[in-house]
């Protein structure tokens, strides 16, 4: 019984580790500047956890193999000399130091993403999430966004941002349904919601941020690969949540300039 258990446990441990090591089901390819560091942190954490996992499971399997048969067992039960105190202390120290180490190492990646300000030449884009679509607004040549008037939002008339014609900063704003950005250009998104909590999630960019109504939440990243990436809402927002998505189109600088001019002409 003990030997069978030991074998099964070893097989399960091996398969579990192999699934990760093989990277058969792995992350999509990184397409942003900070994504590599984030993936690296993930892998480091996995490896740290895997070492503890393998040691614990194979240790258990070894003891089950050696001492697991009840039949014909004549040895008396022995109390661990000195009690289990030192083993408990060892476990506490091991787990505690792993957690603290992960915090110190991991916070560097977090701080690089969230505590460093966006680059001064970032392209600012306002995002408005609402049941059940995303809309994007570019500031235009004046570099300023006009205010959002919630009471003027009218999707039937295409006024997604509640723009008022009397606001001078709004005159050159460009509202789009796709988020177009040039490659290798730092981007700062200003996330807003008009009704429910939403989420802004682009896995290839390794960016995710909950959008909370009543707050404008900044999120910055630098896309490094040209392509079309899905932006999905990943915070339950109502019955159409499963359809709520938009697209991030990362283009070359020339293509972006053509695109933004075309979008401006559609306003």
């Amino acid at each position: 019984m003990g030997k069978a258990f030991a074998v099964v446990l070893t097989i399960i441990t091996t398969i579990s580790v192999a699934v990760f090591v093989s990277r058969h089901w792995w992350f999509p390819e990184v397409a942003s500047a900070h994504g590599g560091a984030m993936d690296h942190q993930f892998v480091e954490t996995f490896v740290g956890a895997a070492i503890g996992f393998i040691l614990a499971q194979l240790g258990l399997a070894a003891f089950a193999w050696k001492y697991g048969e009840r039949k014909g067992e004549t040895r008396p039960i022995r109390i661990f000399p000195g009690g289990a105190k030192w083993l408990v202390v060892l476990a506490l120290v091991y787990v505690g130091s792993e957690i603290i180490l992960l915090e110190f190492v991991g916070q560097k990646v977090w701080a690089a993403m969230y505590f460093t300000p966006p680059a001064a030449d970032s392209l600012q884009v306002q995002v408005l999430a609402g049941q059940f679509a995303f809309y994007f607004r570019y500031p235009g040549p004046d570099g300023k966004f006009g205010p959002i008037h919630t009471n003027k939002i009218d999707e039937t008339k295409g006024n997604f941002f509640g723009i008022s014609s009397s606001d001078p900063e709004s005159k050159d704003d460009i509202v789009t349904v796709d988020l177009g950005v040039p490659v290798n250009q730092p981007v700062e998104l200003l996330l807003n919601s008009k009704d429910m909590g939403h989420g802004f999630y682009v896995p290839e960019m390794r960016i995710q941020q909950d959008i909370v109504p009543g707050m404008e939440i900044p999120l910055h990243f630098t896309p490094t690969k040209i392509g079309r990436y899905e932006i999905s809402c990943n915070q339950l927002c109502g019955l159409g949540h499963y359809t709520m998505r938009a697209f991030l189109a990362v283009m070359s600088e020339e293509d972006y300039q053509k695109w933004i001019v075309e979008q401006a002409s559609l306003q």
Partner: protein
Amino acid sequence: MDAQLHHHTAPTGFIRKYIFSLDHKVIGKQYYFLAIASVFLGMVLSWLVRIHLVWPNVHVWGLGALSPAGAPGGVISPEYYLSLLTIHGTLMVFFVLTTAPQAGFGNYALPIQIGAEDMAFPTLNMLSFWVTFLALCSLVATLFVPDGPPISGWTAYPPLSAVGHLAGPGQGMGQNLWAVSIALFCIGSLLGALNFITTTVDLRCKGMTLMRMPLTCWAWLITAILSLLSFAVLFAACVLLILDRNAGTSFFLPSGLLVNGQLQDHAGGSPLLWQHLFWFFGHPEVYIAIVPGFGVISHVL
């Protein structure tokens, strides 16, 4: 502790023996059967969720009769899918994982393991169970209201959960019943936690020092302390949610919300407040769910 000195005469009659019993073993079994009933209902709901993921347009027998609005002709609509998973999550987390390990097994075995005659407050124990039962009734009732169960998930984030029926189907009466159910559950858990802590601190028999206590008893004690601290906060959150929904307050709702084309007149609140209050409960909750299990494993091994 005076509870020990009041020897009750054995109850007679079916109601006193099996329904409104003060005996910790009966109450433990009642909690256990409540958890079993909840787990089976939650399991059926999870089947419906999985069926919808694989075959979105299949007709599920009987569902059309249960909810003509949510599942017309037995086909699960997107909003009904959300309702199903909301009730599934709520049932499993609260009525299975929080009741069975702590209230179910704990009520049954704790007094026996520490050599006590019963829990410290047997009447409170009985009340705790029946309040929890009322909470379950309120939750199951959401399946039968015309607009259906809430669609905001077991975490019920506002504004979706706080704005009211405009936010979507099930967000009217369904969400109200959900909030009432969880509030009642919190009361039951808080009373139960008081009972566990008092029993463990006061009713250990002579010679049963804390360091001699089985690890299961330690686990139930730690879990009860966690429950006391975290369910109180969730209760407050549920009360604030009920007020936001029905009394025009704005604890969780900022200004300028445009829901379904209608500007809401709430102002000054933040959805983050619910998130903080809920998860102040939510993280200890997962320990409340697992620590009794750790205690049992430690004891058995």
